[in-house]
């Protein structure tokens, strides 16, 4: 149980996907302008991360490994994720239109998001059990959510700030991301020692 909590908390705070592993930077910079689109995007990411881990973990351990096909990991995972996301979108559109309205817009955008492929591959690399892998995916998704929501707040402040001409747009956003990421460095070492 303690291990699961450590995995969850370190995925959210220490190894934050966006701010310390640099995965999923594109949506982080692109969709974080408004709070509601940032929330929608991150909920969709959490959903897809959990779903694709639930599918790719069994594929790796029950299909690829017994047949010595481990080297096909990259191809199989990206295809499974892409197909899965399309399928989920179709199903949502048909049967749960209200959920599709809030998440559906973002689903096609994250098919080839590197955070999603990243979390599925890391789960295998770290030799997590199925439960640990699911907890890690949940933590990673929550970490993405936290970073997105925090950063959309930071960005709304930048909008009104007087920025030098050449820093306008992306550069000042990146500098702000750097300071946000600095605040996450403070969590290093805290969580391992919490249960020591």
């Amino acid at each position: 149980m303690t291990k699961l909590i450590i995995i969850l908390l370190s995925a959210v705070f220490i190894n934050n996907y966006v701010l310390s592993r640099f995965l999923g930077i594109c949506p982080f910079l692109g969709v974080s302008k408004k709070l509601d689109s940032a929330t929608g995007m991150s909920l969709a990411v959490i959903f897809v991360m959990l779903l694709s881990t639930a599918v790719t973990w069994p594929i790796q351990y029950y299909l690829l490994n017994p047949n010595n096909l481990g080297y096909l990991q990259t191809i199989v995972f990206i295809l499974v994720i892409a197909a899965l996301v399309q399928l989920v979108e179709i199903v949502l559109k048909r049967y749960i239109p209200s959920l599709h309205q809030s998440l559906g817009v973002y689903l096609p955008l994250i098919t080839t998001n590197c955070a999603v492929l990243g979390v599925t591959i890391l789960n295998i690399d770290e030799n997590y059990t199925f439960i640990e892998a699911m907890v890690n995916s949940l933590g990673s998704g929550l970490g993405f959510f936290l970073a997105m929501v925090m950063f959309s707040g930071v960005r709304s402040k930048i909008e009104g700030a007087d920025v030098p001409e050449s820093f306008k747009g992306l550069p000042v956003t990146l500098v702000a991301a750097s300071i946000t990421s600095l605040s996450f460095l403070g969590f290093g070492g805290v969580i391992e020692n919490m249960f020591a």
Partner: protein
Amino acid sequence: MNKLQNFSKGLIKENPVLVLVLGTCPTLATSTSVLNALGMGAAATIVLICSNIVISALRKVIPDKVRIPCYIVLIAGFVTMVQMLVKAFAPALDESLGIYLPLIVVNCIILGRAEMFANKNTVVDSAIDAVGMGAGFTLALVMMATIREVFGNGTFLGFEIPVLIDNKISILTMAPGGFFVFGLLIALVNKFGKHKPKKKEFGCAGCPQAAACGRADCGGCAGQAEAEVSAQ
């Protein structure tokens, strides 16, 4: 456009990282040391050249409707090959690039060039374009890595630099330093580049979903998402 222009546009005018802002994830993550940057640049360039050549050669064979999945399978195949080669011949590099090596599959630059260039041009032109873009990606990576390694770690390619080794700014090699140096470099490009900073912040053309989204002209994916949210 002649062959030389075709090559050189990738280096400066349409530099994939600094001007088109594609492939930000590997740029930030692997630019902690010059050696990593060179390794990442080389790996991505090889995949880019192979995929551009094959996609361009098959551009009349691949049906238009399923071209994105086809490209992804081809690219993933080449990435797997490069991954196995690196594991076999440069295990140290494999260790330090880690997860970012398989993640070349989702590097926007590669799918972007396939979609934007290789499926419309001849094999030779596509190969030249790939070499130029790959060189531009590597150049930007090495520039960032040089700043981060020299000032953050006091070394260059592992060699110690006399004064800087005692005055390290370690933060530059950590995550915040990556964002910061990248921001500074883009600001420099905006300041001294001949082109005015583009209105569109993120290159939608490189987005794998650009074809499906069909709203590339309204500010890219983010613009589309926001437009659809506000429409509801």
